[in-house]
């Protein structure tokens, strides 16, 4: 829980849940597990608001509670962790992936679940059907069964999972001392991916033009109309790990496509698809697949003859990036995809490109050299990199001052005398990756702050434009003449329009930048996590 992570989490919570939740969340992040009284006392927020914030955090899965550590009867303690909050940066990517895999229905299901934290299947299906109906033409509506089938498909491919039941929540007063300190991991649950039998028959409802009245009536209807669909108490959440595996696979496939060619990437894609269910998330490499199996499972559009496939596989194995490895000779050759090695290579490529963009291609050459040769002396660096001594020195010192390169001392004598010590330059990939990851967090936090600053500067202008848009919309709805509309539009002067345009451009740029930095964050995080487990 570094300072940068905490700062970024605070900003993300503030943007999505409001300032109160942000304060409570950052306080929990900084101080570890705490009970309710301490939180209230230390943050100075009223009991009511703290309770609401904790409810919001728990519902969205960012906060876990457990009975106190000191004694079985001590008050419940609440704990948050950075990882879950940092996922918020990646929500657009999850939604977009669901769209590419399962269409608009899948997209809306994931979006609803991300917005609400967790929901039952029936309520998700109803809400999504209503939203889809809203966007369809008049007279058509979305059937619940279509949405349910999309939901089931998402569960089958493990993109959605059941929320684990909160042990100790309801049975607190029974005084069982053996309530587990940590809540159950969803995967340890046998029913994690079982779709309940739900009786959902109906079609989506379209909201009529008189929205306010309808909203209230609908709200009342949902309150009084509590039909049970057979799945009460079963809540579903998005399974982020599965999405991450998918992103990782996509990264590997696109890397192969960039390095080699389209056909090799198709072969790797086939291999990964076949091993989706057999590979555990933390596996170093996929289960071995024989060349015969791969040949049979290739998509029919790629009818390459068998010997060509063998040649492609040999090429992939011989490639220095080591995406694919050979694990045996039976069945025409057993091949595996080296997942951890691939991640390490992707992270290394990221580091190299960072150095290249920051310091120039010659510094990048030195960096790559040090990565490959591990330890080099000053003189050797100049020779191998073929860069004149003075410039090489300069570049090395710049890299050293930025902590991308480290100096390793190897003494000849026990007293570390400077004249009798070797000084070798070296690059350690893992610590450098961690450092860059922290830089990425800092970058995103800075981007968010700048965006908030820009919005605050032009707050007055934004409010004015919003009001004018509202007036325009109401005028149009009530059927006004074009002259009235132009008159209202002219209430914003031309320089103000320009200012608004520039503001919109800046905010879009900052948002886009956040998305892009998040891609780097994903790569580096996956790499760091993979080394932790292996």
């Amino acid at each position, binding site marked *: 829980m570094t300072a940068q992570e905490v700062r970024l989490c605070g900003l993300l919570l503030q943007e999505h849940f409001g300032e109160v*939740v942000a304060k409570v969340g950052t306080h929990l992040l900084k101080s570890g597990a705490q009970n*309710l009284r301490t939180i209230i006392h230390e943050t100075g927020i009223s009991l009511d608001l703290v309770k609401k914030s904790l*409810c919001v955090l728990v519902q969205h899965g960012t906060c876990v509670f457990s009975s106190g550590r000191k004694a079985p009867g001590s008050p419940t303690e609440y704990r948050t962790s950075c990882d879950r909050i940092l996922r918020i940066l990646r*929500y657009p990517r999850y939604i977009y992936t669901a769209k590419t895999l399962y269409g608009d229905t899948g997209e809306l299901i994931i979006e609803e679940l991300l917005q609400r*934290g967790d929901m039952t299947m029936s309520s998700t299906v109803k809400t999504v059907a209503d939203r889809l109906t809203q966007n369809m033409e008049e007279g058509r509506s979305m059937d619940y069964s279509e949405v349910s089938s999309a939901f089931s498909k998402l569960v089958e491919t493990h993109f959605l999972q059941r929320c684990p039941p*909160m042990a100790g929540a309801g049975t607190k007063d029974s005084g069982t001392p053996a309530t587990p300190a940590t809540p159950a991991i969803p995967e340890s649950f046998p029913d994690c991916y079982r779709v309940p039998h739900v009786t959902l028959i109906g079609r989506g409802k379209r909201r009529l033009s008189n929205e306010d009245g309808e909203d209230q009536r609908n709200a009342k209807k949902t309150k009084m109309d509590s039909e049970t669909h057979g799945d009460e108490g079963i809540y579903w959440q998005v399974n982020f790990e599965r999405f991450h595996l998918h992103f990782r696979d996509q990264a590997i496939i696109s890397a192969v496509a960039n390095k080699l060619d389209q056909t090799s990437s198709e072969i790797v894609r086939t291999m990964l698809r076949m091993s989706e269910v057999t590979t555990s998330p933390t596996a170093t490499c996929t289960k071995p697949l024989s060349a015969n199996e791969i040949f049979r499972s290739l998509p029919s559009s790629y009818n390459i003859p068998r010997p060509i496939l063998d040649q492609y596989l040999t090429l992939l194995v011989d490639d220095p990036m080591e995406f694919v490895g050979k694990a045996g000779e039976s069945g025409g050759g057993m091949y595996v995809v080296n997942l951890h090695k691939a991640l390490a290579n992707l992270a290394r490529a990221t580091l190299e490109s960072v150095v290249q963009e920051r310091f120039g291609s010659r510094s990048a050459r030195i960096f790559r050299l040090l990565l490959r040769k591990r330890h080099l002396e000053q003189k050797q660096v100049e020779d191998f990199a073929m860069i004149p001594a003075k410039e090489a020195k300069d570049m090395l010192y710049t890299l050293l001052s930025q902590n991308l390169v480290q100096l390793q001392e190897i003494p000849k004598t026990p007293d570390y005398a400077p004249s009798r*010590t070797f000084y070798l330059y070296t690059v350690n990939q893992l610590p450098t990756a961690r450092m860059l990851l922290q830089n990425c967090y800092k970058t995103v936090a800075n981007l968010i702050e700048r965006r908030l600053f820009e919005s605050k500067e032009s707050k007055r202008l934004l409010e004015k434009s919003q009001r004018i848009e509202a007036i325009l919309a109401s005028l149009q709805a009530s059927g006004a003449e074009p002259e009235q509309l132009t008159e209202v539009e002219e209430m914003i002067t031309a320089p103000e329009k320009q200012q608004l345009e520039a503001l919109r451009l800046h905010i879009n740029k900052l948002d886009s930048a956040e*998305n892009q930095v998040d891609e780097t964050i994903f790569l580096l995080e996956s790499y760091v996590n993979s080394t932790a487990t292996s």
Partner: protein
Amino acid sequence: MTGRGRGRGRRMMTFSVEAVGINRGDSLPPSIQQPTPLFPVMEQKPLPLAGGEEAEYLLALKQEFRGAMKSLPCFIQPAAAHRDVERYSDKYHSTEPADGPTDWTTDWKRFPKELRVRVKKPTRDGVSAAVTRSDRVQSGQKKKKIKEKEEVLLKLETLEKKEERGSSGEEEEEGEEKKKKQEDEEAEGEEEYDEEEFEEETDYVMSYFDNGEEFGGDSDDNMDEAIY
């Protein structure tokens, strides 16, 4: 032995100068006298952002998600800061988060007991007819003692107020009654009630007080004379 060169000669350093590559006669770069500038000049300009359809769609998704979160009940506004003086524009600024708390129905069994807020209190601030009707049913079951006490006080109040206020007063009373029946917490109920008590029940009996409203009413009969 070590550190022998300290202070002797400007150019002695703790590490071997030749090994790292600074030869004699080379000028060292100037030493830094102050912290590095906040926005240093970049020699290499950064690459432009990745454009394309996917990036734009992701951007749109992100902004929509943010906007949607702001309107959900999960978005908790801090308690509105009370300004020093009541302003006219406060009436037109929407401060209440609409029906945020009521919308948020969740399975309270999944939360620890101390967080279960909504089970006890129904909404206090919903004034619309639909909400009051349903809440009156709910709150009628709870805390009968307070209701009785409030009803007695209410009766006294209504008797007093009947003299001063006309039909508009009765509607207000009904509104106040409804509001009070929704209030569950003793403290809040008594607070609001006390405020109203003080408004109506001053030490001075209202009927004795002549606030000048009747002045000038008599002269309406004769319109020929000027009204001063």
